[in-house]
């Protein structure tokens, strides 16, 4: 039976500045990933696979591509009569659009008040993982906590957005939280997913607003740890946060690992995305390919090694493409040589061109460029 009484809220414009190149014309949530996905597909599918029927997506700017991707929500089964997908663009009586999570949540107070779900899950959209939120809810209820925060044990990834570390007692209750701590070595660092009662969220947000406190980590979480019972849920599976262009590149490349694919694309909890109805990928005479991920609609006539090819990419004859992430409908001409290049959508690389980046600094070619 579906429907588990949780309302999902996704922040679409989160840490956009971390991957400036990719978010120039789009939100973090709509950054293309893994050959056929956008980052939001992971969070959205996790919610839907856990039985969530109502999801609000909070947007701030540049959300045209996101709206185009989400459409009516049909691809995630969120085009429904009862509940479904709600895109929540900025709404403000004042002149400024909101900057923080607290401001944006206070601007959707009506939406929160009019929802009937008992719980709310708040999630960022700048990471890929396959997360069973039913399990998070079960452990939340069992712990009799007011708020459940997710964490992972390990070193805080470099350039991690708004990192927190949690001091968790043996019963799983959070005793203390540090914001942007200087910790060498492993700690319980925060994953940006929070579960709590809807009524409590409304109370906590109103309280922050009435005190003019707008910092989500300090004012919403850290300040309230003594006042409410915070429970920590440790996530031990695969997760990759996109904190920089290098992270973006690495996360794509990690998909070549069968273990990562098996976990991320677990067939019991599939990751859904917008359908494009391309034909299967076609390999021509003399094509050579190794260790690559290739989506539908690609035509490969050259040599491809360690690459992620999105839908509709064309690799010309004699081209040699290594260590590249090539987004939708990009055309690579004949006899091109490319190494460590990230190409955005609709790029054209003309015949005989060479582009070389390095592992620690992949070259980025922006959307619809012609080289």
């Amino acid at each position: 039976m579906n429907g588990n009484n949780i309302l999902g809220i996704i922040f679409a414009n989160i840490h956009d500045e971390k991957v400036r190149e990719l978010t120039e014309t789009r939100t973090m949530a709509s950054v293309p990933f893994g050959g056929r996905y956008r980052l939001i597909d992971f969070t959205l599918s996790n919610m839907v696979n856990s039985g969530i029927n109502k999801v609000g997506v909070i947007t701030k700017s540049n959300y045209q591509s996101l709206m185009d991707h989400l459409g009516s929500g049909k691809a995630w089964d969120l085009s429904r009569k009862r509940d479904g997908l709600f895109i929540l663009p900025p709404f403000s009586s004042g002149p400024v659009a909101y900057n923080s999570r607290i401001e944006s949540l206070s601007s959707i107070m009506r939406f929160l008040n009019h929802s009937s779900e008992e719980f709310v899950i708040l999630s960022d959209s700048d990471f890929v993982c396959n997360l069973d939120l039913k399990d998070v809810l079960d452990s939340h209820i069992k712990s009799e906590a007011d708020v459940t925060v997710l964490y992972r044990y390990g070193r805080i990834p470099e350039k991690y957005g708004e990192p927190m570390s949690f001091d968790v007692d043996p019963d799983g209750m959070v005793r203390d939280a540090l914001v942007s701590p200087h910790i060498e070595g492993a700690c319980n660092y925060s994953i940006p997913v929070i579960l709590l009662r809807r009524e409590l969220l409304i109370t906590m947000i109103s309280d922050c607003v009435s005190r003019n406190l707008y910092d989500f980590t300090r004012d919403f979480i850290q300040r309230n740890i003594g006042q409410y019972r915070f429970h920590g849920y440790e996530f031990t599976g695969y997760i990759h946060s996109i904190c920089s262009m290098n992270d973006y590149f690495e996360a794509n490349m990690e998909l070549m690992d069968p273990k990562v694919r098996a976990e991320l694309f677990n067939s019991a909890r599939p990751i859904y995305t917008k359908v494009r109805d391309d034909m299967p990928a076609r390999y021509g005479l003399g094509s050579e390919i190794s260790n690559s991920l290739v989506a539908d609609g690609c035509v490969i006539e050259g040599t491809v090694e360690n690459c992620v090819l999105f839908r509709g990419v064309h690799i010309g004859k004699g081209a040699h493409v290594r260590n590249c992430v090539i987004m939708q409908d990009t055309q690579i001409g004949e006899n091109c040589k490319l190494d460590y290049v990230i190409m955005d959508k609709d790029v054209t690389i003309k015949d005989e061109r060479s582009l070389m980046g390095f592992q620690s600094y992949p070259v980025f070619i922006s959307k619809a460029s012609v080289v």
Partner: protein
Amino acid sequence: MLPKQEVIAMILAGGQGSRLGVLTRTNAKPAVPYGGKYRIIDFPLSNCANSGIETVGVLTQYQPLELNEYIGTGQPWDLDSMNAGVRVLPPYQRSSGSDWYKGTANAIYQNIPYIERYDPEYVVILSGDHIYKMDYSKMVAYHKEHNAACTIAVLDVPLAEASRFGILNTKPDGTVYEFDEKPAHPKSTLASMGIYVFTWKKLRKFLELDEADPNSSNDFGKNVLPAMLNAGEHLVAYPFEGYWKDVGTIDSLWESNMDLLNPNVPLDLSDESWKIYSRNPAMPPHYVSRDAKVQNSLIAEGTNVYGTIDFAVLFAGVYIAPGAVVRDSIIMPGARVEEGAVVQYAIVAENAVIGKDAVVGQRPEDMEKKDEWGVAVVGPNCVIEPGTVVAPKAMVAAQTKPAEEAAK
């Protein structure tokens, strides 16, 4: 009352397709997988959607479960609009005179009430077992222009092959004056493609006459069209150019899949203006490993290739193990080819497993007796034990469980 639809389409999808053997044992022919991610019925359904025909009836009878489930609400083909859309039409029981669909014409006859609800001017009759891209709106325009009672799409076939088809003999203006069913000495090379546009009022009249004739086999080609011709109705041939293939046999199904790998065959499924829609599985892009060798192939999403493939069509969720070799073959959704296995000139159906070092099919040039060669077929869910040899032209079905045997 529903809004009037000028044109509606009816797809004949009830035949058993017995020539496809194990592939259609528990599945209707139109639901047989094709081309890496499609099923045969995607072609007429997508053609309808792309031609602007929004009302489509699919006549089912044989093993309809998978086909019904696949068509669903018709959403993948945009055939789920408010007052139109796709409907699956099985035979049904009525207060008197209930029957299975006795023939293609009878299937339409039994659904006259469905058609009448839309009060159409024209009805397009299609088959659920052909691979082609066609703009039916042009054919309807041709039908109107010629003021015909029936327009029959025809393909110009080589003279040598004409005796395998139903041939239409026409006057220079395209008017049909004679039908020749599989003629020994064909007078023309215009073969009927089994695609008809009828003026509904005329068709209705002839369906009723046909039903009243106890000697009729209730078939369009054998009974209804000749009856219309004899009654002096205006029948015209509509010349079609492009790729068209009846995939009713193992050989033609195999060939038609292989045609997708041939750049000289005019069947482009990547055409943005005429997409072939299908139900897409939620799977990641396919992965090709470091040691894999891939050439001249079509690979769908969710597949993992570790072995060697050449001239292969791999559907979604297929696994080709390291050291396995697949050549000139079709591997349908979810099938596995284990280490060291060699699959050549074969069709491996859904969820079948080819065990380690098993050998399925053979290249014709390696055969001593050439006439014994043919495409080998491994049926759905069939497990080929390690080391087993499946001969060319053989057809292997999944082991039926003892309980099922006892029940028979």
